[in-house]
């Protein structure tokens, strides 16, 4: 078992890759009664075109299948897995993102029993045509629920604007129509390709003793047989550098119009420490331009063209990413114009110096330290980073190395006019009486 110590943070991370390929991470948290565990596969909604395990021809699977598979993992011949977790006092859940499917529980007791349930249910698929059909009604209601949420529609509308070919533009849950095509056979194909232990990570954080837990997980895994690990061949289409759609409006009943300005990053090929540095630098640059202390925010808030819903975000994965700046506003045109103007001015003449950097860096370090109080943040964020070759605990040392020039360089890759897009949601005009 390997050990990484982060002295200033007073945290120790234990980890090991097992013979079947599974990577296990254990982080004990002093003083916590809860233990939180995630069992995650590097498989999400974007992995819809791939060569199935043991075959030669690539296939394209129906939209929404990774999420559908996540739902169906909970049903077994002997019943519903939620019941098992409840018996052992655990709250269980799962989620599917663009790049990951995670199964998780939190509990304050019977941790070994719950870890066993978690490992065993994810490693024993059970799909029949009948259970697959039955799930379609539930997922259709989930999709319908999201369809009625303007903020979700705004987010996805913007991603559709930015990406022309990349599957990130497909809604994670698919559509009510696309899920009708999903069969049990599809689910098995995806399962066998992406749920091999070598494509997965187990993260256990909280009130846990690392040595005995690692042994326990090893024994559980050693008792099962898996095929030898094989590389997974995923196929992604070519994606132009420019935003696919410059401007688009959706009509939907909303109290006030909603608008996002999105920017597609140029550097989508990054990995590991380089990716971490780029992502943090871009986040700091955006914080300076659009954060709560920015001139932009001050003017926008005082002039009333943003409200409490205002937000901005910068996110980078392998193959896709986005910067988003948005708000509810009665003047979406003005907002979009001011955001674009702010970006343009920073491109023309970089406005920030060392003092600005020091301030937002301190803010970010503080945010990270606060986040370390949350077992959920640690497990989920660590896994997402690890799948991109980054180490979550490198955040503070990396932040400390960043210089003003890094911000400028990162910003230059997320700012060109051709990479920008605007998406607006407005209520339809009232019919004339």
């Amino acid at each position, binding site marked *: 078992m390997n050990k990484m110590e982060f002295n200033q943070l007073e945290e120790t991370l234990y980890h090991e890759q097992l013979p079947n390929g599974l990577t296990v991470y254990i982080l004990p948290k002093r003083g916590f009664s809860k233990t939180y565990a995630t069992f995650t596969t590097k498989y999400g909604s974007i992995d819809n075109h791939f060569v199935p395990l043991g075959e030669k021809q690539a296939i394209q699977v129906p939209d929404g299948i990774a999420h559908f598979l996540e739902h169906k993992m909970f049903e077994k011949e002997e019943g519903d897995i939620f019941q098992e977790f409840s018996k052992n006092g655990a709250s269980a859940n799962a989620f599917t993102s663009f790049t990951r499917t995670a199964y998780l529980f939190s509990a304050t007791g019977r941790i070994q029993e719950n870890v066993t349930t978690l490992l065993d249910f994810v490693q024993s698929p059970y799909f029949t045509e009948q259970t697959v059909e039955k799930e379609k009604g539930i997922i259709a*209601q989930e999709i319908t629920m999201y369809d009625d949420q303007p903020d979700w529609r705004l987010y996805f509308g913007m991603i559709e604007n930015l990406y022309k070919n990349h599957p990130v533009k497909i809604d994670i849950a698919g559509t009510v129509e696309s899920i009708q095509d999903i069969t049990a056979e599809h689910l098995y194909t995806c399962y066998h390709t992406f749920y091999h232990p070598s494509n997965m990570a187990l993260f256990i954080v909280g009130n846990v003793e690392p040595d005995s837990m690692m042994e326990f997980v090893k024994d559980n895994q050693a008792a099962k047989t898996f095929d030898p690990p094989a590389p997974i061949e995923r196929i992604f289409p070519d994606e132009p550098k420019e935003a696919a759609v410059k401007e688009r409006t959706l009509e939907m009943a909303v109290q006030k119009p909603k608008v996002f300005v999105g920017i597609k990053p140029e550097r989508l090929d990054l990995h590991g420490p380089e990716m971490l540095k780029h992502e943090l630098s871009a986040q700091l640059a955006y914080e300076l331009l659009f954060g709560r202390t920015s001139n932009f925010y001050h003017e926008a808030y005082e002039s009333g063209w943003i409200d409490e819903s205002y937000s901005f975000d910068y996110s980078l994965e392998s193959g896709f990413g986005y910067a988003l700046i948005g708000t509810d506003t009665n003047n979406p045109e003005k907002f979009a114009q001011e955001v674009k103007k702010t970006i343009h001015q920073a491109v023309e003449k970089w406005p920030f110096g060392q003092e600005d950097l020091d301030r937002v860096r301190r803010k970010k370090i503080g945010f990270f330290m606060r986040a370390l109080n949350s077992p959920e943040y640690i497990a989920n964020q660590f896994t997402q980073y690890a799948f991109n070759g980054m180490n979550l605990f490198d955040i503070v040392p990396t932040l400390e190395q960043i210089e003003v020039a890094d911000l400028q360089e990162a910003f230059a890759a997320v700012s060109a006019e051709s990479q920008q897009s605007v998406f607006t949601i407005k209520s339809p005009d009232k019919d004339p009486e």
Partner: protein
Amino acid sequence: MFETKKIAQGVHVHVHETTQFKTINFSIRFKDRLTVKNASERAILANVLQHSNEMYPSHTALRMVLDDLYGTSLYIDSTKRGDDHLINLNVETVNDQYLSDKGVLEKVMNLMYIVLFKPNFENGLFKESIFKREQESIVQRIESVFDDKTRYAQQRMMELGLPGHPASITSNGSIEQVKQVTNESLVAAYHQMLENNEVEIYVVGDVSPEVISSHIRDYFHFADRKELPAKTDSQLYPPAQSRVLEYEDMKQGKLHMMFFTPVTFRDEEFPVMQLMNGVFGGYAHSKLFANIREKESMAYYVSSSYASQFGLMFVLAGIDRKLEEKAVSLILGQLDEIKQGHITDTELEQTKALLTNQLKEALDSARGQIDIYDQYMELLEDFDPAYLISRWEKVTKEQIAQAANNISLQMTYFLSGKEEAKDE
């Protein structure tokens, strides 16, 4: 868990010294009675105080200081609990022992003092432009509920079903009342808050209770004030309409049901009702989840919740708009199961295990410790999680069935798409 000191009549400091967290958490809570007028004023007041102050007269200046203090988070919100309205100053700062920089804590405490006691006044009133802007913000916040159809449907049901009752008054008040607030009335509300509200000050982190209490005495000069009289339960009157249908431009049908229970937080039977709610629809093993979702495939979400302050129980489900009647009958069918005592040993044990787990987990965050302690303070002299757990352990199936028999459906509210309305 917390060590309590009274620093003035109606003002208490509660400190929990622990190394569990890398941060120090403060929460200063100003309690007043919940009325629409009070809530409307105090929602604006929270925003105005959070915006700026005498020393940092712009929003930007204040936020920059916070960034410099290692991204100390400071926000003021207004919330409600039962018939109380609360203004909370919440601050979380990195414990400076994890930093090379020292003295952060004292700067943060000084800043909290400035935020509360040195507002951004101009000739004895709040700066007019800030007042106007934040008044407008609260109006927009209330209006934006419409965009979240689950919240909107719940709010509509409460407005129609229990008008004027504390259960239906939101922590932001109403648009009408918010618009009537003047700068003068806001200043009066500010003085009322500082001088007459009950104040509970919470601190959680690696700090010594003696040191922190003396710091608080030094920084905050709270005078004696009257304590609020002991709580009594507000009377519930049956809603004027037992079934309401409303239409908006949307796809899903939102089913909301309201039940009265004779049991509140303050009753002996409170733990029984918590178990009853858990078995019925509180968890993923519950009857509603297992039957309405998993067996019938009718819903993605379906659950019950127990508003113990008022003795209300709600069931919420997102369903196809054509299936309202079927859903209501299936939901009531599951309640009947409990009334008839059809509860398995497994269901009982699962629910006890999850209530226990939920309580222990909540105590793993500083915010959770403060919220739970603050809530139970009126009931228990010494807060002890083991005592709460032991009360659940004692509950029997017969008691749960009995409790279910005392529940009555008072209202169903259904919000769905307009198209259907034309077809029918």
